[in-house]
Structure formats: structure tokens, C-alpha cells
């Protein structure tokens, strides 16, 4: 049986359907990523798992216990890190850790060894007496993670832990997550970043409250339909517009160039004349393998 399972979850805020008939399951020891843009419904799903929201319908279960009715029994095995920094800004690093240790019942010798361990991986020891509000974004997230890990939870649920954090800190943060996974911790993490999805075991694309696709980071790009070319030209508005005029083509800015999606059963020679007429040199179109982001964008536009 899966450690975490969500069955046809739905939740609306007034007319907006934040989560729509959403289901997924996470196995013991997995890193499961919920990927999607802002407002996709990731936070609502996570908060339901953490017993903070009552869904309109559907069930969320952790370790065989209902997250709405039996949440008190789930608390000891769950570590949660909300999206907004949710530690006490006026308390120091140590004080925050002591407080969370205290309410999770980690005290005395247990607490001391645990804090030493947490300081080791977070590198926060030199800042032990600094107030949380004076920490950098990356350090704040590491402190929040440390507090969530105080009681050695079996399941860690993280809501966009790396949003607004510099790339180096992001990488360090993920190294910690991979280390935790080795220790057998099950991790559910939401993120808007595709490079983080690549480091998860399985990922789920979330858009407008619905599940678009689910799979391993290696398998997900295989869902891309049609073919993809990289056009090595400056991605100006005019160029993009001109490309989108060509039938069966969709163009998107991608870094310094343009990704050109060709619909299924359409090949580059099929549209070569049209492209030439629009002023493009087909020689500048290089076929590439679709990645996670290409796949996500295609799924998003189809939905």
C-alpha cells in the first residue's frame, strides 16, 4: 500500500475550482514532485494533506490514516514546510529550533544530538544566535527545513521550498533532500522549476487544479507529441508572431532562441515552403529532443 494517497480530491473557493478531482499516490522512500505554475492548486493539495484544509470531496490519507479525521495521529510522523516562511522572525535560529523541538517532544540529550546533526547539514551553526528575520532566503529555508526535521519525520511535505532562493542554495537544498531520501524519508515537494523535477523519482504536472500527467522524469518527455526544433534566431515578438502564422507550428521563446513545435504527423519538409515564404531559412532549424518543460507546455496548452 502507498504511504500517501489522494483520491479524487476537489476543493473550490467560491467559483474557482482550485483542485479538481485530483488523485495520486506516493510510495515509501520516494521523492514525489508536484509541478505547476502559480495558482495551479499545488498548495491546496499540500494543505489538505497536512490537515489544514477540509476538501469539498475526496480523501487524503497518510499511512492509512485520514488526513481530516485522524490528523492528530499523523502529526508525529509528518514534517511540513509551508510555502511562506513560517518561523518566528523575532526568535533566533537556536530559539526556533528549541521551540519546535519542545513541541515535538525532542528535549534534553535527544535535542542536543539532533541539533548538532541539523546544524551539520544546514551549516547554520555560525548563525545560531542570529534572529530568523536577519537570515538570507536560502538560510531561512534551511532553518525551516531543520525545524520540520526536528522530530525525524517519516514523511516530509514541502511547499515550494526553493522559490525565491538563489541557484547555489537551491542545489544545496536538494542535496539535503537526496540525503534524506537515502535515510528512507518519503518526500512530497511542490516546485515551479523543471530542473528540480529531474531530481525527483516521480513527478506530477498540475495545472488549473487538474493532473495533466504523471511519471518519472525520464518518461515524462516521452508524452510529447509531434516534433521539436530549435530555431537559432533572436526571439523577438515579430519573429515569434511570424512563426506562429505558419500552419501546424507553435513557437515559444526558449532562453536565447526559439522552440518550434510541429504538430503530430507534420514534418519540417511539409512546411518548408511556407517557412521560406515567411522569410525563415530552414537550415537554421535543428531537431532537438523535447524536455520536461516542452512536454509540460504542450500538455498545458492542450488542456
Amino acid at each position, binding site marked *: 500500500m502507498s504511504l500517501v494517497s489522494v483520491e479524487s480530491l476537489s476543493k473550490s473557493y467560491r467559483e474557482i475550482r482550485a483542485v479538481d478531482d485530483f488523485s495520486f499516490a506516493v510510495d515509501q522512500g520516494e521523492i514525489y514532485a508536484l509541478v505547476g505554475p502559480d495558482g495551479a492548486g499545488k498548495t491546496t493539495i499540500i494543505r489538505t494533506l497536512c490537515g*489544514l484544509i477540509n476538501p469539498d470531496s475526496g480523501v487524503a490519507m497518510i499511512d492509512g490514516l485520514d488526513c481530516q479525521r485522524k490528523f492528530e495521529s499523523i*502529526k508525529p510522523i509528518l514534517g511540513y514546510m509551508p510555502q511562506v*516562511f513560517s*518561523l*518566528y522572525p523575532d526568535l533566533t535560529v537556536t530559539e526556533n529550533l528549541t521551540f519546535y523541538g519542545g513541541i515535538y517532544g525532542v528535549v534534553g540529550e535527544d535535542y542536543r544530538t539532533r541539533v548538532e546533526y541539523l546544524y551539520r547539514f544546514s551549516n547554520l551553526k555560525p548563525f545560531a544566535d542570529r534572529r530568523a528575520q536577519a537570515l538570507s532566503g536560502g538560510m531561512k529555508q534551511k532553518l525551516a527545513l531543520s525545524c520540520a526535521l526536528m522530530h525525524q519525520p517519516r514523511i516530509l511535505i514541502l511547499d515550494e521550498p526553493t522559490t525565491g532562493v538563489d541557484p547555489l542554495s537551491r542545489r544545496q537544498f536538494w542535496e539535503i533532500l537526496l540525503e534524506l531520501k537515502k535515510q528512507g524519508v518519503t518526500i512530497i515537494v511542490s516546485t515551479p522549476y523543471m530542473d528540480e523535477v529531474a531530481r525527483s523519482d516521480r513527478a506530477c504536472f498540475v495545472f488549473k487544479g487538474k493532473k495533466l500527467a504523471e511519471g518519472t522524469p525520464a518518461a515524462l518527455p516521452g508524452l510529447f507529441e509531434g516534433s521539436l526544433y530549435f530555431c537559432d534566431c533572436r526571439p523577438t515578438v515579430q519573429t515569434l508572431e511570424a512563426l506562429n502564422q505558419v500552419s501546424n507550428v507553435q513557437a515559444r521563446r526558449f532562453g536565447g532562441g526559439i522552440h518550434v513545435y510541429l504538430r503530430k504527423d507534420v514534418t519540417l519538409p511539409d512546411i518548408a515552403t511556407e517557412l521560406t515564404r515567411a522569410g525563415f531559412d530552414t537550415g537554421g532549424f535543428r531537431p532537438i529532443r523535447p524536455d520536461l518543460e516542452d512536454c509540460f507546455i504542450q500538455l498545458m496548452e492542450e488542456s
Partner: protein
Amino acid sequence: MLKLRFLAHKEFRHILRDPRSLAIVVVMPIMMTFLYGYAISLDVENIMIGVVDYDNTPESRQLIDHFYGSAYFSKPDASPVDGDPERILLSSEAKAVLIIRSGFARALHERSDFSLGMMVDGSDNTVAAAVQNYSSAIVSKFALDQLPVDIEIPGITISTQVLYNPDLKSSHFFVPGLVAIILMMISALLTSITIAREKETGTMEQLLTAPVTPVQIIIGKIAPYIGLALLDGILVLVFAKIIFKVPFVGSYMLLLLFGLVYVSAALSIGILISSLVKTQQVAMMSALVATLLPSVMLSGLIFAIRNMPPVLQGLAHIVPAKYFVTIIRGIMLKGAGLQTLALNGLALLALMGVLMAIAAKKFNTRID
């Protein structure tokens, strides 16, 4: 229990590090004590009174000396000692004129009934009321001084009798009631702010997923404020005793007992407010409107409830401060015991129970 200690400890740190909370805890009680004790004083001293003495005897002059000798009355600068009393009232700064008809000395010796006249400027009714009270006190004291101790029936009638606060000092009246206001402020205002702050900063989200029950969260949060509220209460009582010389006749234990019931009611209001609002700002405004105003206006602290329109009188029944003001005045000034205060005590207890039940029911463990 251990978890409560951590919750309470954390709360203390928040208070110590938040200048706003600290100001409310430390500065406000002191400020309010002096404001109510000194500035909002209904005491009237040095009222100018003129005198028209038709008796003109050693006794009548002695009575006049008694008046001017007291702190309440003084001679007008331009002092017309005889003539038309009304002219004196109009022409001088005098707020009242004492009229001693002839026959005063004889009546005093014969112990027959005698009535002195006092013409009072009613345009300032506070002064007018004070003149009536003070002058009858002076006259009766004078009469008693003149008579041998064994004589039981004084010849001059005393119309007003002032008990418990014989000097009619308004600080004696205000300062005990002030304890009620300050306890309410600390308990309701700070509690509502502290829970709203956890919501505003998002820390409540984390706290609710930790293995602590809502009851533990609430108790851990309010325990420090109960302590602070009681400390502030003691602070005001010490001021009352040392600076305003307010007597404390009754039982300290009884006051503490009722104080705890009252504080619990106030804390319940605070928790209730914080359950209904999302930000500290709104919590503060709501708490002020829901506690400070009714506690000052509808508790009988300043305005007598029986003189209010029926709607406000009805509303006053659900203001916890109304009962506590009566209780604390009863204990401090009259030395009232449990029996005398039973009705007010029970009403307060019932109010606390209802408020607690509502607060507990409304406390939300969900964040949407």
C-alpha cells in the same frame, strides 16, 4: 505540560522583543493610572464661596472659619461679606454663598432646629453637587465640635451622609475600577493580537501541523498574559495605595479569585476575536472596540448605569467589567465579602463560561 512550557516561553520572548506589546504591558497601565487618578478628577477643591452673616456672633464667625479653613472652600479675592447674596454670586467669582440667618448662635445653644442657607451657582453641576456635599459635612462636623460629647441629638440637622469614600475622592472611585480596565486590555487586546500574528506571519500553519492540540496552543499562549495581567493589576493597586492613598479594606485572596475569573472572561474575548479576524491590525481595532469602550462606558466606572437609557442598561449586563468594577470597589472600599458579592460573582462566572464556550467552538484548526 512540557509542551505548554515551551509555548509559554516562546510567547514571553515575543512580548519582550515586541516594543508594541511591551508598551501595552508596561506603559499603558502606568499612563492610565495617572490619567484616571489625576487628570480625570471629579474632585473639586478651592471653590470660591461668599458669606452673608446676619447672625454676626462668635459662633457664626467660627462656622465661617471652618468653611474657609477646609481645603474645599476659599474666599473670593474681592470679598463682599454682606449684601444681596445673588449680587455676590453675579459680581464675584463665588460659586456659592453661605447665608447665616440671625439666631444661629442661639439655636446652637438651645439645640433647636436651624437651617442655614446656601445659594449655589447651578450652571456647573459638578461644583454644585460638591458644594452641597462638602458644606453639609462641614456643618455637621462643626455642630458636633460645639456640643459636649454626651449630648446625643445635635441641634443642626445633617442632610447628606457620605460613606466609604468620606472625602468623595474620585481617585478612590476610579483607581479600583481602573484595575478592571487594565486587566481587560492586557488580556483581550494582547491575546487577540498574538494569535492574529501567528496567522498573519503564517506560523499558525506550521503550529497546527505540530503535535499540539488547539487547547495546548491556547493555554500556552494565554498563560503568560494571565501572569502579566495580574502583575499589572498589582502594579495599579500599589499605585492606588501609595500615590492615591486608596484604602484596601477587604480580602486580597477574594480579589485574586474574582480577578482570575474576570481575566479568563477577558482572554476568551481575545481568543474569540482572533478566531474571527486574520490580521493584527484588525484584531487590535476589534479588541479596542469590543473591550475598551464598553469597559469604560458601560461598566459604571465613570457613568452610573442606572442613569442610562434602557438599551444601554441591557447591554451593560453582558459587559464583564460591569461586574468586576462593582466587585473590586466592594472589596477595596467596603471590605465586602463573598456573600455580598455572590450575585455579581455568579454573573461574572456565567459570562466567563459562555465566552469560553464560544471561543473554544470558534477556534479554527483549519486555515481556509
